[in-house]
């Protein structure tokens, strides 16, 4: 039994703001390391904010998981002594959690200006040798375990997440075409994004014709392998008023990790987004009906569908019908993954979703990409194979 929550001594709603966002080149960038990509994204994020590295006193970073104290390597290269810094290891929930940690650190007086970023050279790693390519992973197998998996032929994130899709289809009658509606909607967004890796239109028929990878997931259910980085800058709401961009307020955040295990209880169909979302909504004083757009962690199509349910945008089991209405399109009732997401823009395990959430609320886009009247957005991070969830609710005022 989980203990009751302690009432917070302060409410962190609107205390901190995201004041800059940046990305690196996205796609196949074999001549730049993950650190080099991250430096490019951090530079762009600081430029966006009108700040320099000398303003930064915090680094909450992630890079290739085998680099020991990655933030230390980056801090040395950028010439930053940090009041608050660490390397994050919470899978795809790391980057959103990094923004939450930054807000907590700034609100408690530990730091004043924190960069959250992730640099990833996954395309280069997967294509570095035959063994990696076969396993479709840039990480060594040992990181995933040496028993109760490899001897069964159980490899890769596709299969892990596909377990959830199978159970959801069994319990609620969800169909592959409904997963396809998600892939199609995000590809349409990518076509509006000149930085996006995927440039070709995708129809539902194209989706159906995609080769099977690990059923029920086919090719177009799976996110991209990319070299890319993203970064954002967090500071106090007070300081944010004087900076270059319209501040994007951190209205609420929450995290929840179902560490009892993906295969246990009903976790395949009920993710940590339920509790993480409730915590974020509570802090923000908002509910799903207040959200103008969402950036949902889309490692696989099904994870979008189940998180939409778990964040309360529709009832449990009705995610398939919800996405089929066209709700996720840029002109739909809940524009989602407006940059193309990890399925069609590039995959930096949630970092680019934070960047896109910030940019939508900065209002920097032209009419083809801007969510009309966007004032409140929800950003989710999900991962850790596949039980970790973090949630941000951002707003313009």
């Amino acid at each position, binding site marked *: 039994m989980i203990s009751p929550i302690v009432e917070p001594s302060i409410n962190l709603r609107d205390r901190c703001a995201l004041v800059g966002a940046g990305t690196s080149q996205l796609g196949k960038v074999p001549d730049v390391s993950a650190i080099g990509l991250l430096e490019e994204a951090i530079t762009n994020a600081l430029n966006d904010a009108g700040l320099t590295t000398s303003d930064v006193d915090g680094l909450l970073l992630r890079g290739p998981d085998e680099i020991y104290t990655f933030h230390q390597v980056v801090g040395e290269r950028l010439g930053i002594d940090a009041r608050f810094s660490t390397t994050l290891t919470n899978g795809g929930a790391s980057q959103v959690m990094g923004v939450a940690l930054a807000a907590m650190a700034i609100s408690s007086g530990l730091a004043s200006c924190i960069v959250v970023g992730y640099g990833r050279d996954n395309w280069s790693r997967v294509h570095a040798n035959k063994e990696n390519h076969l396993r479709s992973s840039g990480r060594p197998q040992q990181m995933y375990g040496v028993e109760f998996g490899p001897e069964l032929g159980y490899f890769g994130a596709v*299969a892990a997440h596909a377990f959830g899709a199978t*159970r959801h289809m069994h319990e609620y009658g969800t169909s592959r075409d409904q997963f396809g509606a998600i892939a199609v909607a995000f590809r349409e967004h990518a076509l509006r994004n000149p930085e996006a890796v995927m440039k070709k239109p995708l129809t539902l028929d194209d989706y159906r014709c995609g080769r099977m990878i690990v*059923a029920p997931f086919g090719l177009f259910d799976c996110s991209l392998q990319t070299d890319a980085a993203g970064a954002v800058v967090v500071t106090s709401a007070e300081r944010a008023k004087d900076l270059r961009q319209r501040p994007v307020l951190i209205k609420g955040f929450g995290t929840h990790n179902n560490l*009892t295990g993906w295969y246990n209880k009903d976790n395949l169909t009920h993710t940590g987004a339920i509790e993480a979302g409730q915590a974020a909504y509570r802090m923000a004083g908002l509910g799903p009906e207040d959200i103008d757009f969402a950036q949902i962690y889309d490692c696989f199509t099904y994870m979008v569908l189940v998180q939409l349910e778990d964040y309360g945008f529709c009832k449990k089991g009705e995610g398939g019908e919800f996405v089929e209405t066209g709700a996720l399109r840029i002109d739909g009732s809940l524009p989602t993954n407006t940059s193309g997401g990890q399925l069609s823009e590039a995959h930096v395990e949630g970092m680019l979703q934070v960047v896109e959430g910030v940019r939508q609320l900065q209002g920097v886009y032209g009419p083809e990409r801007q969510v009309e009247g966007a004032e409140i957005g929800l950003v989710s991070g999900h991962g850790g194979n596949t039980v970790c969830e973090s949630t941000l609710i951002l707003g313009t005022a």
Partner: protein
Amino acid sequence: MSDYAKPLPIPSPESEPFWAGTKKHLLKIQKCNECGETWFPPATLCPNCGSRNHRWIDAAGKGIIHSFVTYHRLYHKGWEGELPYVVAIVELVEGARMLANIVDIEANDVACDMSVQVKFDDVTDEVTIPKFQPT
């Protein structure tokens, strides 16, 4: 020397009794003497109540498929020529869940909540892997 081309499990101190059991065609799982919880994979504490007071039991080897996936893409050369194959989460009648291959059935015919029973596969002289087949 075996020509077995698939990876073999590398037991941990906690899991050695499990692999010693499969070699004797016994499916051993842990059961808490305090609260009755059963669990898998092996651990030193009961995940339900935290007790160290637990024992190994011989599971009946029967259960249902909680969920499953079907590999159509090759991830390891050891499975060359064996696609498609099925990996499932099997919920044992004792309550614990474990990952296992489902065998002796067409991949298309596998379904959630299907009843299955253990079938031991002596893949080498030293290692036996428990698989499951429809009952």
